[in-house]
């Protein structure tokens, strides 16, 4: 689904990513661990094609297409979706309208989608205006549900979300990815009959792993991917020894 080869990225004059190689096969969920400032968000922004992230070497391939220099919106239309950690407010644009825009030409029942996310009361509010951390994440998930991407990039989905809402969020991520066991049994058939989608999930704390199933974990440390193995195992190591010790084995 997503293949990153020898990727080098600069922001301003500073090299943020050095020689990143990553492969997320179709249907797999990969977890990206790393301390603050290691380049996790930069990697996600580069995959999506945001301005300010200059690729100096390497290649990004998505669904077999070279997207290294493809405009942002074309990558979105090709099937990449992002859950932003701190999205901007868009004044005068209601969340309802935003969700419709995300759906493009498809018809979506915004009320139905939002009731799953308990977001009904915020639909007429301007996008991200005066929302709590958890509400922002639910707004982002609502948009992704309408967008229906083939691969989602989730930037710290659990940050700022209280314990009660994190389960709801995890469930909505599973819905978008066609994975997991749903609370509502009538949906199970649909879930297993549809192909799972791919995901790259940035997490700092690993809490989200209690709610979504991960196929693999990677550690990004000082701009380099240093480790690739079972996500829960990596999380245990990090808890036990910290990042520096954890990546020490790969040096």
């Amino acid at each position, binding site marked *: 689904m997503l293949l990153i080869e020898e990727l080098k990225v600069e922001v301003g004059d500073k090299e943020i990513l050095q020689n990143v190689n990553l492969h997320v096969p179709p249907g797999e969920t990969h977890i990206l661990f790393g301390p603050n400032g290691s380049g996790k968000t930069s990697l996600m922004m580069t995959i999506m094609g945001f*301005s300010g992230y200059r690729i100096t070497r390497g290649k990004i391939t998505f669904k077999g297409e070279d997207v290294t220099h493809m405009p942002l919106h074309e990558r*979105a239309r090709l099937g990449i979706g992002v859950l932003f950690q701190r*999205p901007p407010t868009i*004044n005068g644009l209601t969340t309802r309208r935003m969700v419709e*825009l995300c759906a493009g030409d498809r018809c979506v029942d915004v009320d139905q989608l939002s009731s799953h996310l308990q977001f009904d009361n915020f639909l007429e509010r301007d996008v991200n205006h005066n929302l709590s951390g958890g509400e922002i994440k639910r707004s982002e998930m609502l948009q992704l549900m309408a*967008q229906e991407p083939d691969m989602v990039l989730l930037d710290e989905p659990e940050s700022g979300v209280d314990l009660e809402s994190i389960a709801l969020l995890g469930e909505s991520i599973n819905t978008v990815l066609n994975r997991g066991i749903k609370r509502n049994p009538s949906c199970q058939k649909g879930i297993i009959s549809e192909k799972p989608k791919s995901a790259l999930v940035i997490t700092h704390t690993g809490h989200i792993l209690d709610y979504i199933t991960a196929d693999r974990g990677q550690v990004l440390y000082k701009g380099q991917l240093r480790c690739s193995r079972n996500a829960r195992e990596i999380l245990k190591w990090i808890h036990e020894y910290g990042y520096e010790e954890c990546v020490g084995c790969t040096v």
Partner: protein
Amino acid sequence: MHSVNDKTIVNLSDFNSRAEKNEYAYIDSLEAMEKTDADEFVKVGIETDASLRAGTFIQKDNAVVHCSNSSDGTDVMGIAGALEAFPWLESHVWKLLSPEKDDMTREAAQSPLQGFFIRSHKDVKIEKPLQTCLHIAQDKFSQKVHNIVIAEENSEVHIIAGCSTSPHLTTGLHIGVSEFYVKKGATLKYTMIHDWGENVFVRPRTAVHVEEGGVFISNYISLKPVGSLESNPVTYLEKNATATMNSILVAGEGAHMDVGSVVELNGEGARAEIISRAIVAGGTIISRGHLKGNVHGVKGHLECKGLILKDGLLHAIPELSGAVPGVEMSHEAAVGKIDRREIEYLMARGLTEDDAVSTIVRGFLNVDIEGLPEELAQKMDQAVKDTEQDMM
């Protein structure tokens, strides 16, 4: 000496006060209006389905071409006729404004009385809006009007006031003197939609007096290029009176707008809010706002936001002045460009860059205008879409 490009100076001798065509056919019913007229009027919010409006006044150059009133408890008339019918009205003319204020008021004071008189009677709540249209059809015409609006005690009225010019005009001048009286506990909503020509000079002079517990809501919308517009209405608020002034301005190439609001909070408990959204796309906007807290226990907020999409000038001048302790006033002004993060956020959802910019611009102009009838809200939305296409 002023140059021909000096948009701040009006040379009165450039304009003709005499209408060449004195007699425009009177329009008996709005539905029977000629299509060319209807098209012009509709753009500035005039509804041709009379059942949707409580009354209508239309003046073309200096001729009243339509005046009707379908609701009890209101008066809708030409001002000259109203002064004959109601001798007491004389005391309301040049009461809030002085004819000696400037050249424009002097010019208006010397001219025959044109314009409208609208009154909502005591305790009458008019559900449907009333509408007025002042239109300039003759080239180089100088239209001078003096409008009086009175919302009597505990009455409620919404007036949609459109102003426009015929498309062929090379230039024209509109001097509009308006004096509004909002009596005790009354509510006056005044939504003004302007569509002037590119070389038309517009000089409204407006003053509003709001008595105890009264509410004045003004919505001013000017999306199309106007040669030169200078408007700085003054509102005087008494005890517990409220004023909300919203303006949405777009200045394309060649447009010059100097628009603001002054609100004097003169009674305890008075509240005022001035909100302006300005977009410069090649023209000039001077966006003013001035709250004057003259007594204890008043509150006001001023919000002045501007976007510059093409080189021009956006000059925000928010002012607050407090004369005594116990006034609470604040302002917020921002002038700039569209945040790149917002554009890319929308692009990450699949919108092209152009669509993302349009969406943000439309949102920026989308000030929630209280009490705008649904059909007019839809028209405004379409006008904003058209405008933003012109700007890109």
